[in-house]
């Protein structure tokens, strides 16, 4: 029995250490890790990195161009853009992580249930997923926020719901593949009960596609949040969000272009880093897909 399990274990997520090392050895993986790492550092250590209070207005220093005091300049209220960018990273990461956790958690649960119990349960779950999938992402998120009201929590819930189907599908597909292999039948024949099989065998096997999916979903979630905030329906003032900073900047574009450039650059770098990391991760974890 042990021998039969062995090759499957190897296909699962490699130990963290070797995974990180593999990613690091690939130039793209390294670039992605550095980018994502920097954004996470900004988010975690925001209070130490920021140079001013995020909300502090200074009417004497409105529209200051980037200088030694205000590295990225100031906005129309005289607030320090650098500090707002740093805290904005925190907002982006928190919203992204919470939203993806909601999506991944429910997606994992629904996917396991659909894949394992099949029949009516599966049809109903997949039908609901198809319906969620039938709405353009951002439209559904905007709709949910429009109904529930604008707030950071509702933004996270909305983005989370929108992302559930992707995870459900990934997990269900993996469960079905794993189920069809011999060693699940073997596990059953030696008397392991269904729940045991589920967690002991299915879970490590779906970790690889799940991780890739989560990384890509994180970039998608950050993007959706930024778009919603840009439209005024995501993060509400006074919380800083790159999307709303960029949106506010449009009114003052001619006199203070830095108000637009810095948030735009940070949004782009963040999404780009997550996408690069996601690609590299997929290449490492799922070499079949590498071309």
């Amino acid at each position, binding site marked *: 029995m042990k021998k039969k399990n062995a090759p499957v274990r190897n296909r699962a997520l490699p130990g963290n250490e070797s995974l990180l090392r593999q990613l690091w050895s690939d130039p793209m993986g390294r670039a992605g890790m550095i980018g994502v790492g920097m954004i996470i550092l900004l988010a975690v250590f925001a209070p130490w990195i920021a140079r001013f209070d995020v909300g502090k207005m200074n009417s004497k220093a409105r529209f200051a161009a980037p200088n030694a005091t205000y590295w990225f300049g100031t906005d129309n209220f005289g607030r320090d853009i650098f500090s707002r960018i740093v805290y904005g990273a925190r907002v982006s990461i928190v919203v992204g992580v919470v939203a993806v956790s909601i999506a991944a958690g429910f997606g994992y649960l629904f996917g396991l249930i659909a894949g394992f119990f099949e029949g009516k349960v599966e049809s109903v779950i997949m*039908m*609901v997923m*198809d*319906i*969620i999938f*039938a*709405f*353009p*992402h*951002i*439209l*559904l998120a*905007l*709709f*949910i926020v*429009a*109904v*529930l*009201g604008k707030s950071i929590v509702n933004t996270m819930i909305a983005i989370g719901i929108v992302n559930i189907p992707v995870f459900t599908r990934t997990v269900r597909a993996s469960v079905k593949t794993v189920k069809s292999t011999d060693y699940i039948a073997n596990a059953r024949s030696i008397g392991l009960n269904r729940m045991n099989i589920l967690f002991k065998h299915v879970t490590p096997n779906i970790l690889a596609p799940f991780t890739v999916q989560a990384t890509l979903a994180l*970039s998608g979630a950050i*993007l959706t949040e*930024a*778009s919603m905030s*840009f*439209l*005024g*329906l995501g993060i509400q003032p006074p919380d800083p969000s790159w*999307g709303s900073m*960029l*949106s506010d*900047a*449009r009114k003052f*574009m*001619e006199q203070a*272009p830095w108000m*637009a*450039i810095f948030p*735009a650059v940070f*949004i*782009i770098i963040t*999404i*780009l880093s997550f*996408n*690069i990391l996601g*690609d590299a991760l997929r290449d490492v974890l799922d070499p079949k897909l590498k*071309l």
Partner: protein
Amino acid sequence: MRDYIIRRLLGLIPILIGISLAIFIIMQLIPGDVVSGILGIEQTPELRAMWEKKLGLDKPLVEQYLSWIGKAVTGDFGESFRTGAPVFPEIMSRFKISAELAIMGCIFAWIIALPLGIISALKRNSVVDRIVRVVALMGVSIPNFASATLVILFLAKGFNYHTPVKYVGLFENIGTNMEIMVIPAFILGSVMAGSVMRMTRSSMLEVLRQDYIKAVRAKGAPERVTIFRHAFRNSSIPIITLIGMQIGSLMGGTVVIEQIFSIPGLGQYTLTGINQRDYPVVQGCVLFIAVLYVVVNLLVDILYTYIDPRITYN
């Protein structure tokens, strides 16, 4: 073939019911209720009762749903709370503008992405390939609103150019209309272009490894026949799937792009509805866009069967 299409159309019905139910259920989650939303602080019990009756809110939920959906099927999406104008005609007239934007976006995306994706696959690991891959990655990673803002900033600062503010229809003045639409459409198409480029490249690489491509070359085929008649047509199957999926994000993208460039399309209408808590407008727009998305995907599925004979109609 005809049977297949009919069957697919019938299969659409449960999804459409599901979509409308989802919208209806979400609408029930509005905190407080619609009437207080309309009346604001001026509400009196009499006014309340009048509005509730007018909107049919005094009836049971099932009846409310059936009456809403029954009217929606006949093209009656109700009236705007703000203007009192019927929603459906407004959606239709604005849809034409959004459709123009989206179609132009798609065309830009394909014109750029398909040739570059093919070249990138054929010249694998060359300098061209590397450049195309970076461009494609930028395409999928730069959000519409960020590139739009930067482009506007660049044009304003660099060339003192501002896109026309007042919208002009395609049939009123095609020149001005194009001046308004080209940049937004290009930006709207850039995300699709990026992902189509990536898919074209990987799909072409996959097909080019296949035995039948080797066999076609062994028959003495000219390179262009091998690449276009055989390799590209086979690669196009996953590309079409991707395009079907991307159309959703393209429609979502119109909300953002129309807002930035002040184009009075469906996206802008939806957003205005959301901001003004004009629920019939929001409900109508969301229903319309979701149904449109599902129908477009069905068309994509049918298109498949023309390209891939392996798809059985059963």
